[in-house]
C-alpha cells in the first residue's frame, strides 16, 4: 500500500510561483478577481509564503510553498458532518465535492489554512474555458476544496501501471507543482518505500514539519538550512 508524501527544499525554492500557476491550471482553480482577493478569498491551493528574516543589513528572504499537508491525524476529518473530508487508504485527505454541504468546519479546524471555499460559482470567460483540465471536476458555489496531491495524476498512473502489470516507479507520478518547479525543489513519492527519494529526504537532518507540535502528523517535509541561534 502506498503512502504518498512530499518534500520541499526551502533552500532551493526561488519563490518564482510556477508551482502556484501550474496548480491553478491543472486543477481548474478559478482566479477570484482583485476585489475578492482583497477581501481574502483567493483560492491558491498551493501558496508561496514569503518571509523576511533578520535585521538590515543581514536580511534573508525565505519562501515556503504551503499546500495541504495530507495529515495522518487530520483535524479537518472528524469534524466534517458528511464525511466529505476523510482519509484514504493511501494516506491522502480526500475532499469529496458532491458530499460537501459547506459548513466550513474543516477550514476552521485546519491549522495550516489550506482549505478553500467556493464563495461564488467560478467563471472562466471565453476562451479560458478551453484551458480546463477534463480530468478534474469544476466545483460549484458552496463547497470546500483543497490540494489533493493531484490525485487525478496518481490515479491515472496507478491505473496505467496496473494495466501494464508493473509496479509504479519512484518519480513516475509528479503533481503539477512538482513537475513545474524550476529549481526542482519539490519531490513527491511513496513514503512507504524506504528507497524513494521522498523517504530519503524525510529522514534528512535538514528536514522538519510544519506545526508538528500540534500532533497533526503532516506528510510534507520541509528541508532548510539549520542555523544555530
Amino acid at each position, binding site marked *: 500500500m502506498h503512502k504518498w508524501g512530499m518534500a520541499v527544499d526551502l533552500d532551493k525554492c526561488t519563490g518564482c510561483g510556477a508551482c502556484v500557476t501550474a496548480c491553478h491550471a491543472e486543477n481548474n482553480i478559478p482566479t477570484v478577481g482583485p476585489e475578492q482577493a482583497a477581501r481574502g478569498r483567493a483560492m491558491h491551493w498551493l501558496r508561496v509564503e514569503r518571509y523576511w528574516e533578520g535585521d538590515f543589513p543581514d536580511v534573508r528572504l525565505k519562501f515556503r510553498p504551503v499546500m495541504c499537508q495530507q495529515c495522518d*491525524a*487530520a483535524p*479537518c*476529518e*472528524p469534524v466534517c458532518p458528511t464525511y466529505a*473530508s476523510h*482519509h484514504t487508504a493511501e494516506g491522502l485527505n480526500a475532499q469529496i465535492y458532491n458530499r460537501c454541504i459547506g459548513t466550513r468546519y474543516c477550514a476552521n479546524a485546519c491549522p495550516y489554512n489550506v482549505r478553500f471555499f467556493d464563495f461564488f460559482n467560478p467563471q472562466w470567460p471565453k476562451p479560458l474555458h478551453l484551458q480546463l483540465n477534463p480530468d478534474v471536476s469544476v466545483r460549484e458555489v458552496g463547497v470546500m476544496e483543497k490540494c489533493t496531491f493531484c490525485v487525478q495524476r496518481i490515479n491515472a498512473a496507478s491505473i496505467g501501471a496496473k494495466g501494464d502489470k508493473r509496479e509504479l516507479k519512484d518519480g513516475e507520478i509528479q503533481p503539477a507543482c512538482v513537475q513545474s518547479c524550476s529549481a526542482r525543489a519539490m519531490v513527491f513519492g511513496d513514503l512507504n518505500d524506504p528507497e524513494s527519494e521522498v523517504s530519503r529526504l524525510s529522514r534528512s537532518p535538514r528536514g522538519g514539519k510544519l506545526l508538528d507540535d500540534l500532533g497533526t502528523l503532516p506528510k510534507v517535509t520541509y528541508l532548510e538550512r539549520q542555523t544555530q541561534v
Partner: protein
Amino acid sequence: MSAVYALYSSPDAAQRAVNGLYAAGIAQADVVVMSGEPFEAQPFAHRDSATWLWYIACLGGFVGLGFSTWLTRMTELAWPLQTGNMPIVAWWPNLIVIFELTMLGAILATVLTLFVTAKLPGRLPKLYDPEVTNGKILVGVENPAAATLPALERALMAGGAAELKRS
C-alpha cells in the same frame, strides 16, 4: 337521562358530595369528578394516582439507548471511513449521540403514555359543564339507575351550595 351532576364552589363541598355518593352505594369508579385545577389536599382527588409512568419513561430511555448505540455503531461499520486517526467505532463521540437519544426516548415515552392514559385526544363526554373551568367542581354519576336517583340527588344536594343538573 344519561347523567345527573351538581357543581360546587369549594373543594370541601365537593368532598361532602362524594362521600354522600359513596354512602348511597355508588362505586368509586362510577363517580365522576371534574375540576379546573388539581386538588392535592382532597381525598376525592387522590383516586387514580397510581401510575406506571415513571417506569415507562425509564423504559423509553432504554429504548433510546439501545437504538442510538445500534445506530452509531452500525453506521460507522457499514461504510467505514477513516477520519483523523480516530477509531472507526468512536465511543467517545458516540456517547454524546447516545445520551441525547436516550433522553429523547424517555421524553417521547412520557408524552405518549400521558396521551394514552389520560385518553387525549378525546371527545368531551356528555357529562361536562363549562362552569368547571370557571372554578366550579363537578361531581356526578353517569347513567344512574332510575331507582337510585332520589338517593343520588339527596347526596348531591347535601354537599351544599350546589345546583343540581341533569343531562
